[in-house]
C-alpha cells in the first residue's frame, strides 16, 4: 500500500484550507472565479473610488 497518490510530491495545503488537487468541482470553481479576479477593474469601479476620494478631501 502506497497511501495517497501524490502525498510525497505535492506540498500539503495550508492548514485550515482546502486542497484543490484532483477535484473537478474545485477546478471549475477556480476557473470561474479566477477569470473575474484576473480581470482589470472596470472603469466605473475606479471612477467611483476616485469620486469618493475627492469628496473626502473636499470635506476635510
Amino acid at each position, binding site marked *: 500500500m502506497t497511501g495517497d497518490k501524490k502525498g510525497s510530491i505535492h506540498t500539503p495545503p495550508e492548514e485550515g484550507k482546502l486542497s484543490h488537487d484532483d477535484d473537478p468541482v474545485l477546478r471549475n*470553481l477556480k476557473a*470561474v*472565479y479566477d477569470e*473575474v*479576479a484576473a480581470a482589470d*477593474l472596470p472603469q466605473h469601479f475606479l471612477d467611483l*473610488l476616485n469620486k469618493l476620494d475627492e469628496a473626502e478631501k473636499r470635506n476635510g
Partner: protein
Amino acid sequence: MAEPGASFRDGIIEHAPSLRAFAHTFVKDSARAEDLAQETLLKAWANRERFTEGTNLRAWLFTILRNTFYSEVRKRKREVEDVDDLLAANLSTPAAQEHAMAIRDFREALAQLPDDQREALILVGAAGFAYEEAATICECAVGTIKSRVSRARNRIAELMGDEPIPDSGPAVPSRATPPAA
C-alpha cells in the same frame, strides 16, 4: 499620521478584484453581481470608521458583501434569469464552445445550491479563506462551514454526473467511504 483614507482606499483597490470575483461566482446574473460588488464598495467606504486598522480588511469586505446580498434578497424575493447561454453561444471555436459548455454546466449546478452552501464553497474553495475565516464571515461555526463545503462539493459532483467526492478532512459528517481498491 499618514492619510488613513488613502491606505483604506488602497486596501479596497487591492481586494476589489476578489470581491468582484466572488460576486460574479456567487450570483449568476452578471449585472446583479456587478451591482453587488459596487454596493459593497460604497458601504465599505461609508462605514470605514468601523474598520479597525490592522485587522483583516479582506474578511471585513467579504462580510459586507455577504450582508448586502442577503439584505437585497430579503428586499426583493425574485428570481433573475441569466445571460450565460448568450455568452456561451458567442464563442466561436468548437474547443472554446466545449469549454464554455462545461463552465456553463458547472455554473448551472452551482446556482442550484442553497445560498449558504454556495457561499461557503466559494469563500473556501476559490477566494482562499481558511475555514475559520469563512466561519467568521458567515457568522457560524467552523464545523458548519466544513459541512456546507462538503455538501456543496458532493452536490455539484452529483449534478455534473461525477461520483461523490469522499470527505478528506476531520470534523465533517462523512458519507460511506468506498472500500480501498
